[in-house]
């Protein structure tokens, strides 16, 4: 048994400990051996599958399933010029990050809601409402780079994997069934969109995103401009999900500005490509 696997298992048992306090040895429906004995090898195999292994494939499958659910709620906006434009801006930004095992695909959601999201495996979406609000390609790059940073750091995927481990120990997942396992990941991922990531992950994606945009040649202060626009919005139905899942624009401006290095500040000039967005909006 690898020490890593053992410690992951210990963590997931610890995570469910309060719920099982009265039945400390009850592992419930975790796969049992033929004669009713605990099948430790089977459990370790299941944990191993979830903890690592075919991770990039799992990640992409789960991300695609989450995106399918989101498209079921708001379909992609079929406007070829805009679709193509957002894919070019996004793909060019993605060249600036370390991960190469990602199939980057970008889409605009046909909804007036104002938001952008990333799914494990490389699908990034921006809503039509946010897209229409942006004033330059530098601002679009800022939004997409923030989402690319989430995928590059596997922010969502890490949370989904942890929750799957807990679900396994709590007997909610029969992970030997790969299809069921992917479905559980997709369900967890969809709930995660509604609940949001930790604030620290959002601030990290802000810092990374600004760097990614600057590397590609965009205005490093593009995200500040986007935050100023978000600040001017009234809270309402169209911004409810965005504002409930992210720190306030004021807090993000303050954190980003305080963290900005001289190198980043020197890159705070509008790019030559800024106005291209007009023809694609």
């Amino acid at each position, binding site marked *: 048994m690898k020490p890593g696997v053992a410690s992951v298992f210990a963590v997931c048992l610890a995570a469910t400990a309060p719920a099982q306090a009265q039945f400390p040895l009850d592992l419930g429906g975790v796969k049992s051996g033929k004669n009713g004995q605990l099948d430790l090898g089977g459990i370790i195999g299941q944990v191993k599958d979830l903890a690592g292994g075919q991770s990039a494939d799992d990640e992409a499958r789960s991300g695609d399933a989450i995106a399918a659910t989101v498209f079921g709620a708001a379909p992609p906006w079929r406007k070829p010029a805009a679709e193509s434009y957002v894919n070019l801006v996004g793909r060019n930004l993605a060249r600036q990050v370390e991960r190469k095992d990602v199939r980057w*695909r970008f889409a605009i959601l046909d909804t007036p809601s104002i938001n952008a999201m990333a799914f494990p495996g490389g699908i990034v979406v921006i809503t039509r409402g946010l897209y229409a609000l942006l004033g330059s390609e530098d601002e679009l790059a800022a939004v997409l780079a923030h989402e690319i940073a989430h995928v590059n750091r596997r922010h969502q995927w890490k949370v989904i994997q942890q929750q799957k481990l807990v679900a396994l120990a709590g007997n909610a997942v029969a992970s030997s069934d790969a299809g069921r396992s992917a479905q559980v990941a997709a369900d967890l991922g969809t709930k995660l969109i509604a609940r949001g990531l930790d604030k620290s992950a959002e601030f990290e994606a802000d810092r990374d995103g600004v760097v990614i945009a600057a590397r590609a040649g965009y205005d490093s202060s593009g995200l500040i401009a986007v935050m100023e626009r978000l600040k001017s919005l009234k809270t309402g139905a169209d911004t409810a999900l965005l504002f409930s899942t992210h720190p306030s624009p004021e807090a993000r401006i303050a954190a980003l500005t305080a963290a900005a290095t001289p190198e980043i500040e020197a890159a705070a000039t509008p790019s030559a490509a800024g106005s291209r967005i007009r023809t694609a909006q």
Partner: protein
Amino acid sequence: MHLARSVRAAAIVAAIAISSLLSARTAMASPAHVRVAGPLQAGPAANTPAAGRVEAGAAVDIVQRKGFWAQVRSGAATGWLKLSRLSVDGGGAGNEIAALASGRTGSNNVVSASGGRGLDAADFARAKPDAASVAALSRTAAGEAAAAQFAKSGHLQTRHVAYIREPKSSGSQR
């Protein structure tokens, strides 16, 4: 008689119009408060000469934003402060800063509510998965070469920039 009165009335109307124009101009500067005391810089960078000093709590007017800096007026002094040292007053102020920075005003910054409910958790919960739309993304995705060409045609110059480390204490902001 009548003529003189209407001339006088017209003059008053004109004066009101001019003064409201002037006040509309000054209203472009948005009010803010200094959160962290320190020097005002002569330009939007820390390595520019000092141009005065502002104390915490001081009321200032933001003249314009440039990158991570705001040009502010504080009494007789004008200078630049990092945005993290300011808190902007009032709801619509951010809008004005964005307008000042981009040279655009008004309509495009105003978001019309859709009138209905926004996209939310309930929509995802009852959504019927649309796998066909996911598959279709592969057809609209851009390749690496096309993206490189796109960058070139936009005259985007790549830069070497290191990731920003997480600040040690998020409380101290300068």
